[in-house]
């Protein structure tokens, strides 16, 4: 069972913002979805079968290759200042 407080807490963790109407709706939807996910409760450690990917240890030489220029990197922001991205104050 998911509570409204759970939804508010999670929304805060991932910074997606949330309004009152959504809190009620998502609480109900998440309860249904988590109930559906509860089939996973049947699984135990003995069901684990170790790594499955055939790929391991992809290494490459640490060589310098061309990358984006400063202009290219800044080409999609509306908030560039003196060649930097400008972000809101954090503190």
């Amino acid at each position, binding site marked *: 069972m998911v509570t409204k407080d759970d*939804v508010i807490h999670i929304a805060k963790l991932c*910074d997606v*913002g949330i309004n009152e109407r959504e809190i009620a709706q998502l609480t109900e*939807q998440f309860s249904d979805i988590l109930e559906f996910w509860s089939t996973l*409760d049947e*699984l135990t*450690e003995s069901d684990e079968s170790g790594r499955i990917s055939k790929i391991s240890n*992809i290494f490459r030489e640490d060589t310098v290759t061309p990358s984006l220029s400063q202009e*290219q990197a800044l080409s999609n922001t509306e908030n560039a200042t003196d060649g930097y991205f400008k*972000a809101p104050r954090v503190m």
Partner: protein
Amino acid sequence: MGTLSFSLDDKYNAFLSHKKEIPFGDGPLSGIPVAIKDNISTLDMQTTCASQILKGYIPPYNAHVVDLLLASGAAIVGKTNMDEFAMGTTTETSAYTKTLNPRDITRVPGGSSGGSAAAVAGDLVPMALGSDTGGSIRCPASFCGIVGLKPSYGRVSRYGLIAYANSLEQIGPMAKSVTETAQLFSVIAGHDPRDASSITAPYEGALDPELKGKRIAVPEEFFGAGVHQGVSETVKTAIDTIASEGAEIIPCSIPSMRYALSAYYVICTSEAASNLGRFDGARYGKALDGKKSWHDAYQDHRMQYFGPEVRRRILLGTFSLAAGYYGRYYHKAQTARQMITKEYNHILSKADAIMGPTMPEIAFPFGAKNDPLTMYQTDILTVPANLAGVPALSVPCGEVDGMPVGLQIIGAHGDDEMVLNLGYGYEMVRS
């Protein structure tokens, strides 16, 4: 070498943007118009993932597959509509437009690569690229009556594919025939050092239609509860046709299928919650309000410009990764993924392919599935191939109520050749 004049009468709203004059070079796809899903980066062409948050974003580089297409002479005509950030099964979550199914405009085209499927099915282009995280190529291929391949994980570079769930997704080809699908696949498959999960396995493109002696595993779970009876019967008829050509049918069971959908949605939302953190309005897309403090600005920005399904999946993923829930959801989902992979590998060590329906039903009317869980459940037959990393093809195999049905052909990891050959062989004998 030349210039393609592309005049578009987009009556299905398949495209989000397109070009009118496209220069192209020499090569195997010289002058062939190809459409690209809007989550694949194209230098100098807007790439939005059908989201408001990326409105106006013009990538400063091409995805690896786009460079390969250009080198093959293809004329990239435009970017196709999709579910926002590829999160959906109908293309209805696009922030921009409603793509119609060319076979019946009152029905969804499937998703999330619905624009690419509609562009091909509606004869706007002969081939297109989609991406498939949990069925996003195969579902719209099935719903629109075309061919679509989700390649083996690692066979096509994901460099420049805007990430939703990295461990599951692949870029893949969509076209009207297996031959064209294979032709497009031969251009995009191969190793790329910029994608660490990329494997060295180019595709030679030589198709072999031989069905005689092939061993086809048919799992009972693909014909179980929730699968429309007409779809079931149509696919069984297709498998009978393949058997009558000398293939051996092996009935089997995949018990771990009962965990597949839950495992898929835990893993994809967890990866999405992490991946979509980068859309902070500072570096690209819609700009953040600089007057507010960081958390306020960031929250308001993401609330305003992410659609409801994207926000729902970020929240769900954050939930499954959060302290106190991780062991119960994310860890268990990884265990389920191991089980599913093991069972698929076991069956595919004894059979050449697994066959069943691509989707449990035909394309449904717009707005038919408003509840998220009901929508998620339509992915049950496509997500296992993504969890196991194996190749899967959807080929049209008949109709129910005038709408196309897809036959799904799943092969062993790395054996995309086999699924394409079987699809080609079936196409040759299909009535």
